[in-house]
Structures are given as C-alpha cells and as structure tokens.
C-alpha cells in the first residue's frame, strides 16, 4: 500500500475517479430503482415474483455502485478493501437471516394463527 507520492493529488485513490464510471453507476442504479418502483406501484407480478424481481434489482444496483462508485476490484491497490467487504457480506446476511428465521419459527409455535395473519 506504499506509493510514496509527495503530492496528494497524484495518490492512486484520487486518480481512480472517472466521470464515465460515476455516470455508468448512477444510470444503472437509477434505472433499476425506476423499474422496481414502477413494478411495485402497478403490482405487475404476484407478490413472490415481485419480491424476487426487486431483490434482483437491488442486488445489481448495489454491485454496480460498489464497482463503479467505490471502485472496489481486485487490483493491487484495492484488494484489501475488497477482501474486507467479502468477509463482511456473510456477517451481514447471517445477522439478518438468522434473526429473522429464529423469530419466524417462534411466531409459528407461539402465536395462534388467525386467518390472514402470516408474513405481512
């Protein structure tokens, strides 16, 4: 991670900014969010299909932002940021997923199920 530039402007993290990259990331995310909003507000698909489609929109949008905006890749300069993000992702998913799973099982066994009471 040593580069030894005296002028901070020449630092690789400054120099990796690119107008085209920022516009690409912006357009991809904005169009995906537009598509997700249009589909949800018009109830274009049955709920499960809709959830699947907007999850894909969110995932592609996030990957585009991480790549084009944060410039995370496997280059020598960025590899440790990428490694720490990759190690972070399972923690993030497990924290949300296991908590949600535990409580859904708890509700299933402790709540009297009324009609229309499932997952909101």
């Amino acid at each position: 991670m040593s580069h030894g530039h005296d002028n901070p402007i020449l630092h690789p993290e400054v120099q990796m900014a690119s107008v085209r990259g920022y516009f690409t990331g912006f357009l991809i995310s904005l169009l995906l969010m537009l598509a997700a909003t249009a589909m949800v507000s018009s109830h274009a698909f049955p709920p499960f299909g809709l959830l699947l489609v907007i999850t894909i929109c969110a995932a592609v949008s996030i990957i585009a932002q991480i790549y084009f905006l944060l410039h995370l890749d496997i280059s020598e300069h960025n590899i440790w940021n990428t490694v720490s993000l990759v190690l972070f992702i399972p923690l993030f998913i497990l924290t949300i997923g296991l908590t949600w799973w535990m409580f859904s099982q708890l509700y299933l066994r402790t709540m009297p199920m009324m009609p229309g009471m499932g997952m909101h």
Partner: protein
Amino acid sequence: MSAHNSPDPKTATLWDTHYHGHDVISTRTFGYFLYLLSDGMLFATLFAAYGVLSYSHSYYNGPTPADFVHPWYTFTQTVALFLSVLAYGMGMSALKKGSKAGVMNGLIAAFVLGAVFLGLDIHDMMDLAAHGVTVQTSGGASAFIVLTQTHAAHIFFGLIWIVVMMFQVMSKGFTTDTVGRLLTLRMFWHLQAIIWVFVYVFVYLWGYMS
C-alpha cells in the same frame, strides 16, 4: 537443521532501510472503510429488527407500510440522493485535476441535493406523524421509523461533514489531510447510497407491496 541459508547475525539487516513509511492516505481510507463496514453491521441489526417486526401482528391492527408508504414520493428521494452522490463524484474528478473550483462546485451540489433528500424525508415523517404514525403506534411502525431515520441521521452528519470540507478546501487547499478527508467522505457518501438501496427496496417498496 543446517544453518546453511541463515544470515550472519552480525551483518543481517532487520528491516528495509529504504522503507518510505506508511502511505498516510491509504492507511486512513482503509481504516475508515473498516469503520464503515461496522456501521453496516449497525444497519444489519436494524434490518433484522424490522424483519421480525414486520408481521401483521406487529402493527397491532394499526396502519402498515402498505397504508403510509408512497413509492413515487420516496423515489424522488432516491433520485436526489443518487444525484448527490453523482455530484460528489464529479467533484472527485475535478480533484484529480487539482481544480479547487471544481471540487467546491461538486461539494455544493452534493450538499444541496443531500439537503433535498433530508427535507423530503422530514416532510414524509411529519406527514406520517400527522396521520398518527409515530414510534409509539406499534412495534412495526417503530422498526420502520428507527431504521429509516437512522439512515437519515447518517445523511445529516454527512451534510455537516460536507460543509466542514468546503471550509477546509478553501482555507487549507489540497494537503494530504484534506485530500484524505475528501476520500473518506467520498466512501461515506457512496455507502449511504448503497444502504439506501437496501432501505428503499426492502423497507419502503416491500413494505408497500405486502
């Protein structure tokens, strides 16, 4: 165990005398990136709380996000935040050329658009309160409001930081410290847009369609 390849202890050098020291900017940005990932874990716990409190019984027969979320209103917030991030990016492209005016324009545009995002969010929360949806309404409403407003609080502190950077760029110019801070603010601002994608899709849109 032969000592065939061992260096002579009397002449061995323990470290590289040509070592130029840490790259100050990279050391700081990497440390800040790790902090941002731990900030991501804060959001993970709030998403988990929202997940377990978004069942219909969590709303205690009160209003649910399907009643109080307006997808197109919140979409304008998304546009404002993404444009703010784009404006900051344009400022960083100007930094690449050492243009102080370009950086200032980028920071000002990012600030204004971020303030628009926050203004729309505050208006939305006032509207919810006027319709009787507050943190006291139900567990589901609490989880919804705490999660979305934690994100809004990040935007608020980001706006303060942008103002501070405007003053520092004006008064100190592009020193190692200010350039490093512009880079860490860039990561912070981009991360807020990434977290907003989660908040928008899985809290606003999914809440609305459920």
